[in-house]
């Protein structure tokens, strides 16, 4: 019975983490955007405006939950929950440190890839349920974008999986550091099994994975509907896209899903390409930096730091680049990213056969 209680505790822990991350993420986004646009951002509530998002949440909880008269009531009410649960379930298979993973499943990355695609359905539900032209246009755009960009993202992931030879994320993480059980070579020639650190990360183990990582990162921006791929909620054309009609706590759920998605896709990128919970510091001679900085607490620290860096880059890109047009978006996906991802997959096969 204790077993089941642990499951519940883990689930609640992950939920509170994603809620806390969304709070901090919104605040960080405001401050970063303010810095980039030479403004101050929130300053009044709390020290440096740090309580601003908490105040926003309090406001949202008090707001009336409005259901438009012509809306499909059930679809409209369930949509935010479906959107958030799809993202939240993805967290179940992410490893945080050596031996620390909520659910040790063999199909790790494949499962996450599957469960994220449910989000599309939630967005379509929201768009159709609202019975609003802007909402449905936003939902259609979002779905078209997500299912298109799943293809380059999927092939970039397959390129890594072919190198790692496993779908289990904990094993993928294990291979990229000093805890690896097999021989790890830097760029195919230098044995770094004992040195670890930066050199044994997947992007350096097989350098073509740097291209795969960039492809994955661009596609993950599109999958989480972030700028420059935010045509689903393009506020200058569509009011707010698929979540135009949502108020109060339902709107908060949609937002929570967006920020959790940012963290989720960044963390997958970190685990697959950037060494997961492994330290970036190598063992140099008798200075065993890698051995000293590997462990449970260090693992959590490294993976969180790396992921937050990627999230910060996502925010930086959002406030720097203008929005794509639909045709540019599809051109980029089908004519640039997809062929490149195919090439990466091919190189991975050759690399695995001849250089590892």
């Amino acid at each position: 019975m204790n077993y089941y209680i642990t499951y519940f505790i883990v689930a609640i822990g992950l939920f509170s983490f994603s809620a806390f991350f969304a709070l901090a993420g919104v605040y960080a986004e405001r401050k970063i955007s303010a810095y980039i646009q030479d403004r101050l951002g929130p300053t009044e509530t709390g020290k440096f405006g740090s309580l601003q998002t908490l105040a926003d949440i309090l406001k949202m909880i008090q707001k009336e939950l409005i259901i438009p008269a012509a809306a499909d009531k059930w679809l409209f009410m369930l949509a935010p929950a479906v959107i958030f649960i799809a993202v939240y379930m993805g967290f179940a298979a992410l490893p945080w440190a050596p031996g620390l993973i909520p659910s040790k499943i063999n199909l790790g990355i494949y499962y996450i890839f599957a469960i994220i695609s449910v989000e599309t359905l939630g967005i379509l539900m929201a768009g159709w349920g609202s019975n609003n032209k802007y909402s449905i246009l936003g939902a259609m755009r979002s779905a078209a974008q997500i299912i298109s960009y799943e293809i380059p993202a999927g092939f970039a992931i397959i390129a890594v999986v072919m190198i790692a030879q496993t779908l289990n994320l904990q094993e993928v993480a294990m291979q990229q550091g000093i805890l690896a059980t097999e021989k790890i070579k830097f760029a195919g020639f230098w044995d770094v099994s004992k040195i670890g650190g930066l050199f044994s990360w997947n992007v350096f183990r097989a350098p073509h994975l740097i291209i795969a990582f960039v492809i994955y990162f661009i596609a993950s921006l599109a999958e989480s509907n972030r700028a420059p791929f935010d045509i689903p909620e393009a506020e200058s054309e569509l009011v707010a896209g698929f979540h135009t009609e949502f108020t109060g706590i339902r709107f908060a759920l949609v937002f929570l899903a967006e920020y959790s998605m940012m963290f989720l896709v960044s963390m997958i990128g970190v685990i697959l390409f950037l060494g997961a919970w492994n330290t970036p510091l190598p063992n140099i001679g008798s200075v065993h930096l890698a051995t000293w900085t590997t462990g449970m607490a260090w693992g959590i620290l490294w993976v969180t730091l790396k992921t937050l860096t990627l999230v910060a880059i996502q925010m930086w890109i959002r406030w720097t680049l203008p929005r794509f047009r639909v045709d540019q978006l599809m051109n980029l996906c089908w004519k640039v990213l997809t062929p490149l991802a195919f090439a990466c997959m091919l190189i991975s096969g050759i690399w695995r056969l001849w250089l590892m």
Partner: protein
Amino acid sequence: MSLVRVLFYFLSFIAIASALYAASSKNLVRSIFVFFVTLFALAGLYVLALADFVAVTQVVIYVGGILVLILFAFMLSGKETLNILQQQQEKLFSLKKLPALLLAGVFFIVLINVVLKADVDNLQWVKDAISFKNEITPNAVMIDNIGINLMTRYLLPFEAISILLLMALIGAAHLSRKEGKV
């Protein structure tokens, strides 16, 4: 009753109930979304049968692909067409539906027959597999097995399916191509 059995009946109930709703509902969009519940319950049943790869593939292909495509086709078609479709007042049993009813009935009899005659608890090959320890444990890695079998024993069907898919791909590209100015 063990937890597995409780889960089995629970998931089967959800699958059957949502499938019935999807088939009988007049609201087309809703029946598509309820179909999603059916597919998810089916995936749960696959997991209970230790076929987790099949379960995840089911979610990828049906939920992420086919359901979204159905919804796309649905939302791109005009509202008038949909209203006409939704307002058809037909009875469940009518002469027009006789072939369908007949087919469904016969298939139902076949299924009942199989279920009654199978005697699942005493199948010979299942007993053999257990006695030779040739069975799947919940922690087994099945992907290697699937990959090796696809590339050796089932290579011909695998290639045939990939050629079929390639044909569908080329056909779709041909259909959606811009008409050239001749």
